[in-house]
């Protein structure tokens, strides 16, 4: 009747779960950079999480979790690319991907980044903020928004690119001024 105490090293597993949950944003951004525009990013992220979970006994508290997770994510991306190539999906080249993976820093403070994003978004004019919200609202498209507002989708798309570029510049400036 009574539950049995688990046999896992509690501290180690606790640290592992904390790292796994805390680094989802970084892991996701890493995958976005390796498979840009793919609708399968969520699936590859899940696969990466599963491999990490199965390998959790290898994790040592205090070690660089993100570097380890990136390595596993790269392998999962390679599996994805093999499948995608079979489907003749045009991808960025393998060489470039390798370069991108190697150059990705594993010390970006994701929480600080999100705070900077919030701050920069808050500085945007209302229309631009709305455009961002529309673009990143799950299940809603710029095309639908164009129909709803009577505007041209192409014009919205161009405007969106400008807004994101200004957001990027604002965030990079903010991160430089307030390093973690």
């Amino acid at each position, binding site marked *: 009747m009574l539950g049995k105490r688990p046999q896992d090293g509690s501290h180690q597993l606790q640290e592992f779960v904390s790292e796994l949950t805390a680094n989802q944003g970084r892991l996701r951004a890493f995958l976005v950079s390796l498979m840009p525009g793919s609708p399968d990013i969520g699936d590859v992220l899940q696969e990466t999480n599963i491999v990490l979970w199965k390998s959790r006994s290898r994790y040592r508290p205090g070690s660089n979790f993100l570097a380890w997770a990136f390595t596993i994510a790269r392998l999962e991306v390679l599996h994805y690319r093999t499948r995608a190539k079979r489907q003749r999906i045009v991808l960025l080249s393998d060489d470039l991907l390798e370069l991108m993976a190697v150059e990705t820093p594993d010390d970006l403070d994701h929480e600080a980044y999100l705070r900077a994003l919030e701050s920069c978004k808050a500085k945007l004019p209302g229309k631009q903020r709305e455009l961002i919200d529309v673009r990143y609202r799950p299940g809603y498209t710029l095309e639908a928004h164009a129909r709803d507002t009577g505007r041209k989708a192409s014009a919205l798309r161009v405007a969106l*690119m400008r807004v994101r570029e200004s957001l990027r510049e604002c*965030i990079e400036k903010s991160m430089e001024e307030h390093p973690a």
Partner: protein
Amino acid sequence: MSEVPPDKLHDRILALLDGTLDSAGIQQLDAELKAGRQARDLFRQLATLHSALEEQGEAKFRMVRTLIPIERLLADQRRGIVRKSLFAAAAVLLFSALALWVKMVPWAPITLGEFRAGSGAVFSVEHSEDRKDTAGNELGEGSRLRLGQGTIEVKFDSGVRCVLEGPADLTILADNRVRLPKGSAWFEVPPPAVGFTVETQQLTAVDLGTRFGVLARSDQGDQVHVIEGVVAVKATGADDDRQPLVIKAGDAREAMAGGGFREIDIHPGKFVTALPNPITFVDADISPATGNTVLDGPGSFGPTTSLKTNSQDGKWSIRTYSGVVGGSVIASGLDEDVEPRLRTTFRVPEEGRYAICGYFWNNEGGEGSWDAAFQLGSRGQMKTYSRLNAVNLASIPEEFTTDVPTHDGDGPVLFQAALGMWDTTRDGSEVTVFIDNGDSGIPGHDLRTWYDGVGFRRLPDH
């Protein structure tokens, strides 16, 4: 695909991230990115921004992303193991990456755990309608424990252990979710049960694998004290997309009116972490050489007597009394001070901290008021105990490892005086208690003392 091919690098990157860049554009971008580090840095920055905006969008519209689907665990693990740990494992893995908030999956209506009440606990248990036949100390979904006083330990099948201190009110909502509108509760959550959630009126606390205490109070802010690990808390009624506050080991927070939390000092001692151990009663024995109790100074014991008012010779006497079951007592006279005091010495069985008690008889409701004075160790001070600051054992059904004297009629009752704490690392393994006849000053009292023995209870290690 884009109607007009983007003519700037960052536009091409964004189009790629949006999935709207055509094959030619991808090849052009590939070459540009290979050619320069700056281009790759720009790409990485835009990819990070794109990902973060997607994260925020999901959080804003309350999408909870499953980190690892449960069915994959089912497929990957032996079913026998999973059945027991499925719920807990699901809780570990169902965290939304942004909000760390858990959505619970309904679980079959089976028994989820059981409870054990500490001695002296006054409580009631209610079960939901479909569980009205729940037996004994089993608990299921909807079971509610209302604890007036004392302590109760709940053990969930998931491995979670909770110690509740009354007055408290706890309802089991699911295998790893409870509601605590009132009371003090301490939780120990093993790793597979990470995600265990405690709801109070003012906050929701999600465990990330830890030991923590929750104090739910109707008149003040609810508190969370994290002894080990990490706990995420969120104010009740806060927006779903508001980030939970993460409390680390050694920290504590109190909910404030308006939804925020303020930092407070952690007090692990506020929480009972285990049911109290039973008390071992040590009968006072003045047998020469083998006894544990002697006169603490020159003098002699008076003659053994069964007289109602024993000898008026200023000496302690062995007293028997009709109705007292469990041996004799060491008694002083009716209205005389006795010299010298008594000293009882005994050893505790192992290293640790112990609560030490003294036992004396009180003629509660009868003639006079019989008191006793005790001093724990040579560093303590002699203090008089009466019915005002000691407890009638008959009113707190304390658990003992040994037989305790009782009275089988309407005569005197045995009282328990809490003398203090004995720490073997500081005080040694041999405990000394000094006993004198008491003078409480209660109207109608006399100087009579019936001393019967001492007791010790092992306290939990912190």
